[in-house]
């Protein structure tokens, strides 16, 4: 019988369901430890921002390059854009401008056709909520002890 349990050979065993929670946790915790080691304790705000970037980075790495939103996040991170958040541009009429607000929220949303946008939104939303769950879990377990 097939052992469905061995996910190690395939880094993304459920391509339709997004990254596994375990991989997400592993990446994020590793990123957290890097932030911890490399950010001076004297700048908690800077550290907070770096943790936030680590959150989106580990989300995107876990999703891989098969998703347009994760590619967009990774592009943005690698270019280390100093600019403020993307200024909303006029969308070309070929892409249409249905769901403009959504296009601004989903990374890479501006150039997508409507159908792709909806698919990407679903995946992005799922990954984002998993990331939030993960971070909340870490905060909870770190806070609930030592009463």
């Amino acid at each position, binding site marked *: 019988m097939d052992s469905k349990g061995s996910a190690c050979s395939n880094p993304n065993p459920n391509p339709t369901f997004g990254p596994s929670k375990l991989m997400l946790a592993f990446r994020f915790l590793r990123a957290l430890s890097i932030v*911890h080691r490399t950010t001076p304790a004297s700048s*908690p705000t800077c550290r907070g921002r770096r943790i936030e970037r680590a959150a989106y980075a580990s989300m995107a790495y876990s999703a891989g390059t098969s998703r347009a939103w994760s590619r967009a996040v990774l592009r943005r991170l690698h270019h280390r854009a100093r600019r403020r958040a993307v200024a909303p541009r006029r969308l070309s009429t070929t892409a249409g401008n249905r769901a403009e607000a*959504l296009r601004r929220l989903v990374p890479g949303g501006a150039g997508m056709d409507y159908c792709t946008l909806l698919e990407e939104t679903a995946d992005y*939303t799922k990954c984002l909520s998993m990331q939030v769950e993960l971070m909340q879990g870490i905060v909870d377990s770190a806070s609930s002890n030592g009463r």
Partner: protein
Amino acid sequence: MSSRRSRVSEEEINELISKLQSLLPEARRRGGGRASAAKLLKETCNYIRSLNREVDDLSGRLSALMATVDNNSAEAEIIRSLLRS
């Protein structure tokens, strides 16, 4: 993969939109399948924005927790072991 430039069926769009609806937390869903596409997209936007805010807030809290790592509290030990894993 990306869809063709020719018209995608309304059926497919509706399917994708109801999938989005199923991703919304209970409190944000408008009971049943009667909500209009526009409302659902708006709710999805609100949901994504709130998730972004949560990431922001939790990042701050994690940063504060890191500050305790240099202490010898029990909390610090938990964090240290989490960071080592």
